[in-house]
């Protein structure tokens, strides 16, 4: 195999990348004409081939890793040289190539993207059935997979950015897929703009990295990363005043007494972090993700849960060796992650839209991942990406199946997603129920499911790990000791809320009695409904609300099979990396597998708090794991008590007791309103000012005045256009006469040049048949009696003297023109300083 695809020219990547692109191309261009069956075939084949190629590549990578003990093995493929850039600190030219590589980290991501992607494509082929935009949907979805693969397989930062923008674009297109509804289009725009803010940070980080590390590919950045923490002024970034400028005049009050500087590593880290918060929906840019649920449910599963939103964590893992150089940035990442996890979890508790709950749950879980990578436990964070991809995709697809069933009954987009209208669905949707239960068990951390292992590892690491700077200078930042326990308790609280709200969704959806009989249409009794059997009125979506509908029904096999596969992985994928130090590293395959990737990061920084005390860390393991278990137990038991035993009574009482707080949380803490009032209002007022300037100055003066001048001249000149050919001819005759007179008369024009050395030269202008007669002393008598061909006259003048020269020009018609030329020489300066 390696003879066909050598490690350094691994062209199989072209197949992995090319198939989704081909699918997007074919379905995008010819999809309408091909028909739905062919579109489905193309999209699914593209994904299946891509997944198989990815599997082969992964196996070969494992093979190569086995041969090279503990080395960071990469399968690389150089498509073409793209461009070079300069501006690096060392002054050399920085190559930017279209080069892809598969290593342990991107290999796992690649498998998730193509594997989960294929399952979701399969699911969508049934879910989207009958939609007029069927071909468009699959074209976008395939294009998304291509972009995501470019993102993870890119071997340098600019190429990653190409994929980064590509997934952003596809996300925008798919959120606004049903663009006839203005709210969906607005959600798409919101996602795009929030991501744009993050992209600004990523670009800044990229520029700084190119400057300080003199490179943009992963190996080069790793090699030059030490530059970021070199001492010296050249390696510090001036935050205030910006770029060490000077504020003078009116702005002088902005000038600080001491400039505020940060190390290059911190600046790079914060800039990249902004990009990651945008893409991975963290505070402060998380607001777009809940709105992104406006897209079709398979999109929510693939893009806004399993793959794209983890790009930020992927980038942090990919550039782990840069992030660990700045303990401050690492601490910020951890704090951002923990606070996002808690904030999103509180909102998820009160939401009633099933997809909204899952969306906030995704934001919350992404917060856990940020917390994991933020404390330096990159493997733990990334492992949560891995397990989350399965259980969250399964949850979303299950929700899609539920919505599908509900929608067939209720025919209302909002009511079909409202968990208060559901209940008892396990009777009609057995497979959806069982897989949803499996995924819920994983996300709430039921022991020995995948989420249990990944989440507990993060919690444990949050308590015991923190990053310290590799340089031991006096000014280097050391995170305070209390930060670890604080993060831990925040995360435990968030985990408790997670198990509460996930059990709430599960119980309200699948247990109890179905509450949808009376929604939308007057109904017969439930028992009578059931007698009609499992038929539905799917094919003809009429809105005749007078006839009763049929009960909800299970989805087709294309939808249930992906659910089963994902459900199985949700339950058992955790055994790829069971936590606990009881096990030897060899028994933690994921840890072992990713070790070479994060080796540089762990070399750069000391990860353990408490003086690197391994024994203390091991000692803490069981108490911390017990806290994680308690979070699961308390949260789910509470949900059971509230929603099964008391049938939701306590929550109603609580909402009535504190209506203000309830409404505040239901309105998502009014963060959107806060942004509206601050950032958006500022931008709006700037836009209003610009509009006034545009209307008065640009439109009023520049455009309207100019056009008025043109129109006025046109009105005047138009009067001359009589349309009578004789008038034009007469005008022409007058013009010709004028030109004839001009050429017939001689012209005595001249130029006077001071050629230095007291000499002056008078040159008469030339003309056809001209003769010249000069009177150089100005006495009225010509020097020569006849006209000659000599058109120049040289004069010698002493300082202070002046003379008038007479010039006569005679042309071929014998007409003579005279000119008197006064030549004066100024006095010499008095002093010759």
């Amino acid at each position: 195999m390696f003879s066909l695809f050598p490690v350094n020219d691994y062209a199989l990547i072209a197949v992995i990348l090319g198939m989704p692109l081909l699918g997007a191309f074919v379905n995008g261009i010819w999809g309408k004409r091909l028909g739905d069956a062919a579109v489905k075939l193309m999209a699914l084949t593209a994904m299946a081939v891509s997944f198989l190629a990815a599997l082969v590549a992964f196996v070969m990578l494992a093979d190569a890793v086995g041969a090279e003990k503990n080395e960071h093995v990469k399968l690389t493929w150089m498509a073409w040289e793209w461009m070079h850039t300069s501006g690096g600190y060392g002054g050399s030219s920085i190559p930017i190539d279209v080069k892809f590589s598969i290593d342990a980290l991107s290999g796992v991501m690649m498998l998730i993207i193509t594997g989960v992607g294929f399952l979701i494509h399969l699911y969508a082929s049934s879910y989207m059935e009958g939609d007029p935009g069927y071909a468009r949907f699959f074209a976008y979805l395939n294009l998304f997979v291509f972009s995501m693969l470019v993102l993870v397989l890119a071997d340098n930062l600019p190429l990653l950015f190409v994929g980064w923008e590509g997934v952003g674009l596809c996300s925008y297109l798919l959120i606004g897929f049903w663009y006839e509804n203005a709210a969906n289009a607005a959600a798409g725009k919101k996602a795009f703009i929030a991501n744009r803010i993050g992209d600004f940070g990523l670009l800044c980080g990229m520029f700084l990295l190119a400057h300080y590390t003199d490179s943009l590919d992963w190996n080069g950045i790793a090699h030059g990363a030490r530059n970021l923490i070199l001492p010296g002024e050249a390696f510090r970034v001036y935050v205030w005043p910006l770029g060490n400028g000077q504020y003078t005049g009116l702005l002088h009050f902005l000038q600080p007494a001491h400039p505020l500087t940060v190390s290059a590593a911190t600046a790079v880290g914060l800039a990249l972090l902004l990009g990651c918060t945008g893409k991975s929906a963290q505070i402060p840019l998380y607001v777009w993700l809940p709105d992104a649920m406006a897209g079709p449910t398979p999109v929510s599963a693939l893009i806004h849960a399993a793959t794209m939103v983890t790009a930020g964590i992927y980038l942090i893992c990919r550039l782990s060796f840069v992030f660990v150089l700045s303990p401050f940035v690492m601490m910020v990442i951890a704090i951002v992650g923990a606070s996002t996890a808690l904030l999103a979890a509180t909102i998820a508790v009160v939401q009633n839209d099933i997809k909204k709950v899952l969306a906030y749950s995704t934001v919350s879980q992404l917060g856990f991942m940020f917390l994991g990578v933020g404390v330096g436990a990159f493997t733990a964070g990334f492992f949560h990406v891995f397990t989350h991809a399965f259980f969250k995709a399964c949850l979303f697809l299950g929700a899609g199946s539920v919505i599908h069933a509900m929608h067939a009954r209720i025919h209302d987009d909002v009511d079909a997603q409202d968990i208060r209208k559901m209940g008892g669905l396990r009777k009609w949707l057995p497979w959806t129920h069982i897989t949803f239960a499996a995924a819920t068990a994983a996300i709430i951390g039921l022991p020995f499911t995948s989420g249990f292992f990944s989440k507990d590892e993060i919690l444990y690491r949050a308590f015991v790990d923190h990053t310290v700077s590799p340089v031991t200078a006096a000014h280097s930042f050391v995170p305070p000791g209390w930060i670890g326990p604080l993060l831990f308790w925040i995360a435990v609280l968030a985990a408790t809320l997670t198990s509460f709200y996930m059990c709430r969704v599960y119980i309200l959806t699948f247990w109890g009695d179905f509450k949808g009989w009376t929604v939308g249409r007057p109904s017969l009794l439930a028992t009578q409904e059931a007698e009609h059997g499992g038929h539905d009125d799917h094919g003809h979506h009429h809105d005749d609300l007078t006839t009763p509908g049929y009960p909800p029904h299970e989805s087709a096999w294309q939808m249930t099979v992906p659910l089963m596969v994902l459900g199985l992985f949700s339950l058992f994928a955790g055994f790829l990396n069971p936590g606990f130090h009881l096990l030897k590293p060899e028994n933690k395959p994921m840890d072992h597998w990713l070790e070479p990737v994060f080796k540089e990061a762990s070399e750069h920084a000391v990860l353990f708090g408490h003086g690197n005390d391994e024994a203390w860390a091991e000692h803490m393991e069981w108490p911390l794991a017990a806290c994680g278990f308690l979070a699961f137990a308390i949260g789910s038991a509470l949900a059971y008590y509230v929603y099964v035993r008391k049938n939701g009574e306590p929550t109603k009482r609580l909402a009535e007791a504190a209506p203000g707080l309830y409404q505040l949380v239901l309105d998502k803490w009014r963060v959107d309103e806060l942004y509206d009032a601050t950032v958006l209002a500022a931008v709006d007022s700037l836009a209003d000012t610009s509009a006034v300037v545009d209307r008065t100055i640009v439109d009023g003066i520049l455009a309207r005045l100019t056009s008025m001048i043109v129109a006025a001249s046109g009105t005047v000149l138009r009067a001359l256009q009589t349309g009578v050919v004789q008038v034009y001819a007469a005008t022409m005759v007058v013009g010709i006469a004028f030109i004839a007179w001009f050429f017939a008369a001689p012209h005595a024009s001249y130029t006077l040049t001071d050629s230095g050395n007291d000499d002056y030269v008078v040159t008469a202008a030339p003309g056809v048949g001209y003769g010249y007669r000069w009177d150089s002393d100005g006495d009225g008598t010509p020097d020569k009696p006849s006209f000659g061909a000599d058109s120049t006259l040289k004069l010698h003048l002493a300082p202070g003297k002046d003379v008038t020269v007479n010039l006569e020009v005679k042309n071929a018609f014998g007409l003579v023109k005279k000119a008197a030329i006064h030549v004066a020489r100024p006095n010499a300066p008095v002093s010759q300083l």
Partner: protein
Amino acid sequence: MIPAESYVVLSALLFVIGGIGFLVRRNVLVTLMSIEIMLNAANLALVAFNRVRFDPSAGQAFQGPSHTGQLFAFFIIGAEAAEVAVGLAIVLSLYRLRQTVRSDEADLLRN
């Protein structure tokens, strides 16, 4: 032999007659004829100058037979013929459009 000046004076006279005719008459057919007269004035001048330039008896160096002026006149006659063909076609179209051949009534391009 008639001196060259006579030809030039005749040519100038014809040209001025043609020009005045073009400027003052409003009938398009007459206008066309005036153009013909102007062109023929040019032809006459060309032929006359050619004759003067290459006449051995006029005391100039004879440089072999050259008929540039005459040839030029022939080309102008050809161009005239084409011009009249197009011009008459335009006059016909104008008549169909406006029921007139007066040039001051053919002012579609006015203002």
